[in-house]
C-alpha cells in the first residue's frame, strides 16, 4: 500500500493548512457502512450549519405549517452548490502504474486460441484485458501503441467485477459517490465532464488494433488482427479530433445541480462504469499524457455552470448560497491555461451578486510536471489542492470541499475559514505569572503583590471558548485573559481588575512524534497509540485493519490529524485541588499537588479525549476510548457535514473524590452521539512535574509521556462487554456483545453528562450519577441486546470501580409517542443548604418528565428511591438540556429549565418551547410548584423559530436563558440570539437603560410572554457565570455582561478569607 502526502494544500489566506498523511485503505470504502443510526438521534448538533435544509424540511409540525410555508419554486433549496467536474480524457482509464484498462468485455468463444494464449480460464465465458505500461509507439510502423503485455481477468476470478477499480476514473467515481451519498441532504451536487473531440462514443469490443506487445512470451504471440503479425486489438473511445480543440456544446454538464433530486441522480451516474451507457466515458485522441486533456476548458465550462446556477437561483437564496467546484483530474492540460482561468473564480458575478467559487483540485496520481499548475488552480481560486491515489483520499478531498461551502458566504468570499462556537465559554484559573500572549508579548501585571508584598491571586483569569472551524472540522479552542490588574490606590489591594481579552493561545498539537496518545485495551491495559510494532500488532484487529502495515498507516494518519472538532463538549479546566477540605486527608492530598498545572480537558470528534495545557495551549495528552478504535478508520475519508461521524462528543466532569479511602481527582466523560460508553480516568497527578509557570512546551509535553500519568480506571459498560467484531448496517463499528450484562444493555448513547458527589453523609459513597440517551430501537433489537430498552435508566455508579450501586428505569409513558424516551439531559445533584452531600438528583427525559431521584446511603451503598415526577412539560416539550438548580433553604430547590433544543430536527417541533421555573420541596410523592412559564415567542414577533440553547444559568437571585431564533423561510438571514434574565418568580430581573433592556410588557407573574434583554446576530451558546459576570458565545464573538472594572472580586474564590490585616510592630 502506498502512502500519499497531501502535498501542499494550497489555500488563500487564512484557510487552514492541513498537511496530513492519508493512508490508503483496504478493499472497500468505509463510507458505505458509515451511515450509523445516530444520524437520526432526535438531535442534530450540526443543524445550525444547514439553513437550507431547514427550509426544505418545513411543514411537518403543526406550528410550522401555519407559520412557515415552503416557497413556491424554491424546491429543493437543499444547500450550497457543489459542481463535480471530472476529467474524462483517456488518461483517466489508466492506473497509477500506467496500465490501460480495456473497456471491452471479451468473449472467450470469439477467439479461444487468443484466450488460451493470454491465459484465460477454460471455464470462463468472458474476460477483460489490461494493457500493461501502455504507451505511444514511436517506431514509425503501423502500431499506434505498445504495451508490455496483456493481463487478463476472467469471469472466474473473484475480482472480475472490480476490474476497473484501479483506474483514475473509477477511483474518482467511487470517492465522489461516497461523498454525494453522505451529503445529499446538505448540498446540491451537479456533475460535468471535460470536452470531447468528435466521435466520443462507447466503443465496440476491440474497435482499435494498434497495439504490439513487448515482453516475452507475449511478444512472440501471433496477435489477433487478421493478416497482420503480432498486432493486438484495444477497446478504446478514440476521438477523431482532439479534445482540446473541441468547443463547448452544452453536453459537458451532465446533471444540473439545481434540478430536483440532483444529488441522487449524480450518485446514480457515478455508480455507472465507463463501459455503461450514461457513465463517464474516458475518451480522447491521445493516451496517457496531458496533450489531449482539456482541463483549462473544463474550468471555463465549470465557471459558466456556476454563473448559470447563481443566476437561476432565487433572490432569496442567491445572496448566501455558496458554490464550489471539485475538480478531479489526472493531470493538467488544455489549450486554455487552467491556472489563469482559475483566477476568475475568485469573483464570479451573476444575478447581481458576486461570490468566490473556490476550486478544490483532486489530482489522482498526477504527473509530477503538472503539480505546480494544479496547485495554482487551487491557489488562484481560493480552494485547496489534494493528491489522491485511492477513493478514500478522493472522498477526503471532496468532503473538505463540502465543508468549505458551509462557511458563511461572507467569510468564504473573503477566503476566511468559518469559526463556530458550539459550547459555552468557561472560565478557570491558570498561573499566568510572567506569561506571554499569543504573539509572545509579556502580559502586563501578570504577577502582582500588595504594598505589603503579599501576592495577589488572580482567579478565574482565563476564558476558554470552544467550537470548530471549517473547512476541516478542526477544534477551535481559544484562551483569552479575562481581566488585567490596574493600579488603583483607592482599592484595598492597590489594584482594580478591568476587562481585558488578550489572546493567549489557540489549542494545538505538539510535533506528531511528541504526541502522547493512549488507548486502553482490556487484558493489556494502557497502550501508547503509536506505530511501534507492539502497539500496532495489539491494535490491528480492533482498528479493523487487515495487516500490521495498514494498521500502522491508520495510526499514523490519526496521529497526524489536527485537534478534532468540538461540537458537544464543554471543556473542563482544572487547577490544583482547592476545595474546602472535606476531611483531614484532603489537606495532604491538596498540598502534594499545590503546583499542579492547570489543564483543559475536552472530548473531540477525532476520537480522543484531549488534555490541553492551560498556560501554553499545547495538547499534552489524549486518550482514545477502546470502543471507538474500530471507528477511527472513518476519519480517513474525511468528515461529511451530513452524515458526520461523532466520537467523544460529551462534556468531561471532573471531581475530587475519595476512592477506597484515598483522595483522587477523577475525570468522567461519555461519548454523546459517538457511542454508548462512559469512561473514568484518574487525573490526580496530571500536570505534576513541571513548574506551573514554565513556558517550555517540550517539558510540559514530556511530562505526560508515560501511560501511568493518567491511568484509565473503568468504563460503563465494561470494555470487556464490547465486541469489536460486530459489523452490521446499524452498528458497523462494534457493539455490546454476548457477554454484556442486562444493565449494560440499558445504556443508550451517552449524551447525559454525569454529576458526581458523596451521598448523604461522610459515610456515604462517592458516586457518579447519570442517565444516558437515545438509542435506536432497531439497535435495541439487534443481536445480544435482545430487545432490552436503552436510554431510560438512571444509574448510580461507584466512582472507584464503575459498579452499579443502583439504577431505575423510568420507562416509556403510555400516550407519549412523539419522541423515543431517554434520560438524556444532564442530571443535577443537590442536597440541603450548606451541605456538600447529595440527597437528590434531578433529570429530565425526552417525554417531558422532570424526575427527582431521592438518594440514600447505607453500608457504603447508595440507593435510589422510587423517583417522583417533579414536573411534566408534556411530550411536545422534551427535556434535552440540563437544569439550573438553586437551594434557597432546607430542602427546597428552585429549578429552572428550558424545553426543546435548538438542535432538534425541524420536523420534530410542534409548539413554541418554554422557559420554566419550578419550586420543589423534596417531598416524596409531591410534584413541584410552577413559578413561571414563558413561551419562546419570537416566532410570532419576527417570523422566526425560537429555541433554547442548552441550559440556563443562575447568579444571585436571577436566572439567565439564552435562545436562538432561526428563520426557516429565509436561509440567508442570520440566526439571532436572545438573552433573558428573570427573577426566581418570573419577573424581569434588570432594569431599562442603555446597553440592554428588559421589559415584561407590564405583565405580572404567570403571564405567557416576556421580552428578551436584547438580540444579536448569530447562534448563542449556553450561558456561563463566573466572577459576577455572565458569558456566552454568539457566532464568532463572546458576549460578556457585568461590571467592566470589577473582575477578580474574590467571590467564592477560596475557602478562607483574611478579613483584616495589620502590622503591629
Amino acid at each position, binding site marked *: 500500500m502506498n502512502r500519499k502526502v497531501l502535498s501542499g494544500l494550497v489555500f488563500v489566506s487564512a484557510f487552514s493548512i492541513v498537511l496530513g498523511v492519508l493512508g490508503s485503505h483496504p478493499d472497500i470504502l468505509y463510507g458505505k457502512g458509515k451511515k450509523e443510526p445516530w444520524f437520526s438521534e432526535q438531535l442534530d448538533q450540526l443543524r445550525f450549519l444547514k439553513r437550507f435544509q431547514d427550509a426544505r424540511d418545513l411543514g411537518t409540525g403543526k406550528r410550522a405549517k401555519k407559520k412557515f410555508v415552503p416557497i413556491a419554486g424554491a424546491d429543493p433549496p437543499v444547500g450550497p452548490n457543489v459542481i463535480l467536474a471530472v476529467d474524462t480524457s483517456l488518461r483517466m482509464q489508466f492506473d497509477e502504474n500506467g496500465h490501460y484498462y480495456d473497456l471491452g468485455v471479451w468473449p472467450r468463444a470469439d477467439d479461444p486460441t487468443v484466450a488460451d494464449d493470454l491465459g484465460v480460464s477454460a471455464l470462463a465465458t468472458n474476460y477483460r484485458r489490461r494493457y500493461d505500461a501502455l504507451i505511444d509507439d514511436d517506431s514509425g510502423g503501423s502500431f499506434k501503441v505498445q504495451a508490455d503485455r496483456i493481463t487478463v481477468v476472467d469471469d472466474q476470478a473473484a475480482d472480475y467485477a472490480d476490474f476497473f477499480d484501479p483506474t483514475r476514473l473509477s477511483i474518482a467515481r467511487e470517492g465522489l459517490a461516497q461523498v454525494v451519498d453522505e451529503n445529499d441532504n446538505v448540498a446540491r451536487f451537479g456533475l460535468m465532464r471535460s470536452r470531447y473531440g468528435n466521435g466520443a462514443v462507447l466503443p465496440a469490443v476491440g474497435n482499435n488494433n494498434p497495439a504490439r506487445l513487448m515482453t516475452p512470451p507475449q511478444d512472440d504471440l501471433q496477435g489477433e488482427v487478421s493478416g497482420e503479425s503480432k498486432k493486438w486489438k484495444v477497446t478504446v473511445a478514440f476521438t477523431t479530433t482532439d479534445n482540446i480543440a473541441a468547443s463547448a456544446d452544452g453536453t459537458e454538464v451532465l446533471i444540473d445541480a439545481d434540478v430536483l433530486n440532483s444529488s441522487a441522480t449524480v450518485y446514480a451516474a457515478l455508480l455507472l462504469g465507463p463501459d455503461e451507457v450514461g457513465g463517464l466515458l474516458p475518451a480522447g485522441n491521445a493516451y496517457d499524457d496531458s496533450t489531449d486533456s482539456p482541463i483549462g476548458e473544463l474550468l471555463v465550462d465549470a465557471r459558466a455552470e456556476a454563473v448559470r446556477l447563481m443566476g437561476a437561483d432565487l433572490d432569496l437564496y442567491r445572496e448566501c448560497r455558496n458554490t464550489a467546484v471539485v475538480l478531479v483530474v489526472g493531470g493538467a492540460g488544455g489549450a486554455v491555461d487552467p491556472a489563469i482561468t482559475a483566477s476568475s473564480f475568485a469573483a464570479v458575478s451573476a444575478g447581481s451578486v458576486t461570490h468566490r467559487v473556490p476550486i478544490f483540485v483532486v489530482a489522482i496520481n498526477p504527473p509530477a510536471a503538472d503539480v505546480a499548475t494544479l496547485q495554482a488552480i487551487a491557489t488562484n481560486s481560493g480552494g485547496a489542492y489534494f493528491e489522491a491515489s485511492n477513493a478514500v483520499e478522493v472522498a477526503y478531498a471532496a468532503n473538505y470541499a463540502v465543508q468549505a461551502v458551509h462557511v458563511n458566504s461572507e467569510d468564504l468570499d473573503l477566503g476566511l475559514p468559518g469559526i463556530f462556537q458550539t459550547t459555552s465559554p468557561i472560565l478557570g*484559573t491558570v498561573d499566568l*505569572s510572567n506569561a506571554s500572549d499569543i504573539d509572545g508579548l509579556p502580559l502586563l501585571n501578570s504577577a502582582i503583590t*500588595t504594598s*505589603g*508584598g*503579599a*501576592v495577589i*491571586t488572580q482567579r478565574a483569569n482565563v476564558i476558554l471558548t470552544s467550537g470548530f472551524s471549517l473547512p476541516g472540522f478542526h477544534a477551535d479552542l481559544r484562551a483569552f485573559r479575562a481581566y488585567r490588574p490596574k493600579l488603583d490606590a483607592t482599592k484595598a*489591594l492597590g489594584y482594580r481588575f478591568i*476587562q*481585558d481579552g488578550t489572546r493567549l493561545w489557540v489549542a494545538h498539537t505538539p510535533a506528531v512524534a511528541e504526541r502522547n496518545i493512549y488507548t486502553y485495551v482490556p487484558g493489556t491495559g494502557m497502550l501508547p497509540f503509536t506505530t511501534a510494532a507492539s502497539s500496532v500488532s495489539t491494535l490491528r484487529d480492533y482498528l479493523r485493519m487487515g495487516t500490521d502495515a495498514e494498521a500502522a498507516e491508520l495510526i499514523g494518519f490519526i496521529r497526524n490529524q489536527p485537534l478534532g472538532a468540538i461540537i458537544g463538549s*464543554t471543556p473542563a479546566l482544572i*487547577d*490544583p485541588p*482547592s476545595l*474546602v477540605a472535606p*476531611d483531614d486527608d*484532603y*489537606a495532604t492530598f491538596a498540598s502534594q499537588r*499545590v*503546583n499542579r498545572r492547570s489543564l483543559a480537558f475536552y472530548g473531540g470528534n477525532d476520537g480522543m479525549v484531549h488534555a490541553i495545557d492551560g498556560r501554553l495551549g499545547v495538547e499534552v495528552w489524549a486518550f482514545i476510548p477502546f470502543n471507538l478504535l474500530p471507528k477511527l478508520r472513518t476519519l480517513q475519508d474525511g468528515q461529511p457535514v451530513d452524515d458526520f461521524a461523532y466520537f467523544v462528543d460529551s462534556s468531561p466532569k*471532573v471531581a475530587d473524590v475519595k476512592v477506597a479511602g484515598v483522595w483522587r481527582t477523577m475525570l468522567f466523560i461519555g461519548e454523546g452521539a459517538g457511542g454508548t460508553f462512559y469512561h473514568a480516568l484518574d487525573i490526580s497527578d496530571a500536570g505534576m512535574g513541571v513548574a506551573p509557570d514554565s513556558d517550555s512546551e517540550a517539558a510540559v509535553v514530556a511530562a505526560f509521556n508515560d501511560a501511568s500519568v493518567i491511568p484509565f480506571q473503568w468504563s460503563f459498560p465494561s470494555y470487556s462487554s464490547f465486541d469489536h467484531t460486530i459489523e452490521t448496517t446499524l452498528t458497523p463499528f462494534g457493539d455490546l456483545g454476548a457477554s454484556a450484562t442486562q444493565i449494560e444493555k440499558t445504556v443508550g448513547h451517552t449524551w447525559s453528562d454525569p*454529576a458526581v*458527589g458523596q451521598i448523604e453523609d461522610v459515610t456515604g459513597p462517592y458516586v457518579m450519577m447519570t442517565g444516558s440517551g437515545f438509542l435506536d430501537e432497531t439497535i435495541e433489537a439487534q443481536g445480544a441486546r435482545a430487545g432490552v430498552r436503552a436510554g431510560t435508566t438512571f444509574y448510580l455508579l461507584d466512582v472507584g470501580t464503575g459498579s452499579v450501586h443502583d439504577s431505575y428505569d423510568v420507562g416509556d409513558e403510555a400516550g407519549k409517542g412523539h419522541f423515543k424516551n431517554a434520560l438524556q439531559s444532564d442530571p443535577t*445533584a*443537590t442536597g*440541603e443548604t450548606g451541605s*456538600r452531600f447529595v440527597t437528590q438528583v434531578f433529570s429530565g427525559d425526552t417525554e417531558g418528565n422532570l424526575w427527582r431521584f431521592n438518594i440514600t446511603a447505607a453500608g457504603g451503598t447508595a440507593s435510589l428511591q422510587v423517583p417522583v415526577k417533579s414536573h411534566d412539560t408534556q411530550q411536545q416539550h422534551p427535556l434535552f438540556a*440540563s437544569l*439550573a438548580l*438553586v*437551594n434557597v433553604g432546607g430542602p427546597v430547590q428552585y429549578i429552572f429549565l428550558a424545553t426543546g433544543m435548538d438542535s432538534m430536527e425541524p420536523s420534530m417541533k410542534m409548539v413554541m418551547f418554554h422557559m420554566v421555573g419550578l419550586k420543589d420541596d423534596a417531598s416524596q410523592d409531591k410534584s413541584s410548584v410552577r413559578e413561571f412559564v414563558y413561551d419562546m415567542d419570537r416566532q410570532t414577533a419576527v417570523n422566526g423559530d425560537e429555541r433554547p440553547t442548552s441550559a440556563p*444559568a443562575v447568579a*444571585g437571585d*436571577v436566572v439567565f436563558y439564552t435562545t436562538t431564533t432561526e428563520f426557516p423561510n429565509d436561509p440567508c438571514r442570520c440566526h439571532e440570539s436572545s438573552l433573558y434574565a428573570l427573577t426566581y418568580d418570573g419577573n424581569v*430581573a*434588570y*432594569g431599562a*437603560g*442603555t*446597553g440592554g433592556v428588559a421589559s415584561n410588557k407590564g405583565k405580572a407573574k404567570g403571564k405567557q410572554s416576556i421580552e428578551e434583554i436584547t438580540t444579536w446576530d448569530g447562534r448563542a451558546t449556553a450561558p456561563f*457565570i*463566573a466572577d459576577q459576570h455572565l458569558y456566552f458565545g454568539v457566532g464568532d464573538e463572546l458576549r*460578556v*455582561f457585568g*461590571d*467592566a472594572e470589577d473582575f477578580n472580586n*474574590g467571590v*467564592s*474564590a*477560596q*475557602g*478562607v*478569607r*483574611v*478579613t*483584616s*490585616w*495589620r502590622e503591629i*510592630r
Partner: protein
Amino acid sequence: MPSMTPRMHAWSSERGASLVIALLAVMMLTALGAALVLTTTTETMLTYNFQTGQQTLYAADAGLERSVQDLIREPNWSGVLAGTRTSGFADDPPHLLPDGTSVDLAALTTALQSDTDMFYGVANLNRPVWQLYAHGPMSSLLPAGQILAQGYVVVWVGDDPGESDGNPALDGNGTLLVHAEAFGEGGSHKVVEASAVRTATTSLESGYVAQRGQDEQNRRARKEAVQTPGADLTELVMSLKTGGIS
C-alpha cells in the same frame, strides 16, 4: 513583645477590610521571593536597618500567608485551636536566629499569651489561647536559593475573641486570629496579625468546578449576582479572532 490591642475584637468582625486572597503557597512565596530580591535591589539607597526591617516584615506576612494556605485545607479549626493540628511549616530545634542564637518557642508563646491575658483578663474564657502553628527559617518558605534574606518566622493561631462559647479551643464561628512574628538580621523584629474567616462556600471559580454543570454547586454557594438586579446590565463584547473585551 507586642501587646494585643483593643482593636482586635473589632478586627475580627470587620467586614470589607482588606481582602487578601489566599493562593497556592509556593506560587505566592515564589513571587514573594522575587519581591524580596527586587526590594533588596531597588532600595540600595535606604539604610541597612530599613532594608532588614522590610525584609523581616515581608517574612512575617509570608509566614501568615503560608499558614492561611494550610488553614484552608483544615476541615475543622477546632483541631488547630486545640493544638492537635499544625502547619507543615515547622523546623526542628535549635530554631536558630540570624545571629546564631536559638529561639525559645515556648517562651515566645508564653509571652504572647501573657500580653493577651493582660488585655482580656485571665478570667475571660473567650480570650484567645495561642497555639503554636508554624515556625521555621525564612529561607524554608521557598525552595533553596530563591530567598536570600536571613530570618526566622513564628506563627500562632487563636480563637476569635468575639465568640462567646467560653471555649478558646473550640471554633464555633469559623474565625481565627493568626499572629505572625519574624526575626531578621540586625535584630529586626516585625509582627503582623490577621483575622481569617472560613467562607461558607465552596470555591466555585476554583478547581474542578470550571466546567459544565457547575450549577449543581449552587446548593452550597449561590453565586453572587451579575451587577445589581433591578439596574441595568453592562454589555461587553469580544471577537474570537482579534480578542479584546470592550
